[in-house]
């Protein structure tokens, strides 16, 4: 059975390490915050200008001056700090953020990522996505495996890129793929969701990949 959105987020949370500074994108990536293991110290960064994101406020305690990058009201923690968007992207571009987890429209087998624009449809803009994938040490994509029945993990992206050779790991409801994006690019299937067969996955994946399945508890 394919993983649920929550199970995908839980799988992504296994990429977290103690002491990490992490930026979570909008959508399924936001759910990763619910799966930080107890006792692990992880600081979430919001690119508008905050480190140490707290949970949503209780009703009546919303603060219009305290929002995340998705414009949702949030709260602060004893560990929080605020800074300008220039400082925020300085820490992103400067390689100080350990992990970025974000969504995608397409990922190519060389690590190219497209997630900001579909030509001909209304264009919303890239926000901070291009800065994040260019500057953060490790980039994890959380996405549905297909869109309208068509593969999203491709030989080459057809949509305008957000970044070239930037993705390290792809988690879908069917499987987890590692991408070696430096040197000769290479995709490796490392995990399958329970009940998903390799044959089914091949059918739904355009990218070429090797198989090196790991035992997952």
């Amino acid at each position, binding site marked *: 059975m394919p993983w649920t959105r929550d199970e995908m987020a839980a799988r992504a949370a296994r990429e977290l390490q103690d002491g990490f500074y992490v930026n979570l994108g909008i959508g399924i990536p936001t759910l990763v915050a619910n799966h930080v293991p107890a006792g692990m110290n992880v600081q979430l960064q*919001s*690119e*508008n*200008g*905050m480190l140490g994101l707290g*949970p*949503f*406020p*209780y*009703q009546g*305690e*919303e*603060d*219009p*001056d*305290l*929002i*995340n*990058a*998705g*414009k*949702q*009201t*949030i709260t*602060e923690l004893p560990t929080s700090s*605020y*800074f*300008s*968007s*220039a400082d*925020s*992207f*300085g820490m*992103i*571009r400067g390689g100080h953020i350990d992990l970025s987890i974000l969504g995608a429209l397409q990922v190519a087998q060389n690590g*190219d990522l497209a997630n900001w624009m579909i030509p001909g449809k*209304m*264009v*919303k*803009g*890239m*926000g*901070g*996505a*291009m*800065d994040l994938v*260019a*500057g953060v040490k490790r980039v994890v994509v959380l996405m549905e495996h297909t869109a309208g029945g068509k593969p999203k993990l491709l030989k080459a992206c057809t949509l*305008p*890129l*957000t*970044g*070239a*050779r930037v993705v390290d790991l792809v988690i879908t409801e069917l499987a987890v793929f590692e991408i070696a994006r430096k040197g000769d690019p290479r995709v490796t299937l490392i995990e399958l969701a329970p009940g998903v067969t390799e044959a089914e996955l091949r059918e739904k994946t355009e990218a070429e990949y090797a198989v090196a399945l790991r035992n997952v508890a």
Partner: protein
Amino acid sequence: MNAIQALSQLSYGPPERALPIPLAPACRKARGGGLCGIPSVLIEAIRESGVRDLTIVSNNAGIDDAGLGLLLQTRQVRKMISSYVGENRTFAEQFLAGELEIEFNPQGTLAERIRAGGAGIPAFFTRTGVGTEVAKGKETREFDGETYVMERGLFADLSIVHAWMGDTEGNLVYRKTARNFNPMMASASRMTVAQVEHLVKPGEINPDHIHTPGIFIKRMIVLPPGFEKRIEQRTVRKRPAAAAAGEEV
């Protein structure tokens, strides 16, 4: 007129008098997080002034009935330089009809362009956008084996910013994530006007706590008591059962 006089004269004036009018048709606005930390009253003053053909540098474009959306409604904007405009239908309509030009910048590149402009830096190199449409037509260069694209600094005729507190020297303090683009915007124009929620005397703000020194601020208005800051996406969590029964958590 020196800056102190300007501030003391204009501090209590109406917002429409705080703006240099007639405005040059190239104007910058400070915003960063949707409606968070935006100079809303000064945007209304620009709307009232009727100035047109503005080029606006702003991370977002507001929503239909608030923020920069107000200037889109009245078709006062010719071009936007932004990173994300997804929340505005008026924007979409005018853009698709070819009435509005948009230059998309990655958010960090935009923030740095403004910071650089204010700091007298005409251009800088960044990895952001290399290999994408953003880098098309721009100079690239290799440093230490990595490719970088050149981006230009931005400097405007007018900046408008929002601060939580200011003193009559123009020193500003922002609050929480409402800081966003405001500090860079304040530095990157010939004429920066601030709207502040609280105006205090010099010395009442600890000098160590000032975010934007008064040198950047030419004019200031004070928001009326009870001024309401809007929330774009109200998200809350449920109180635990014990709290619902009246126990503070």
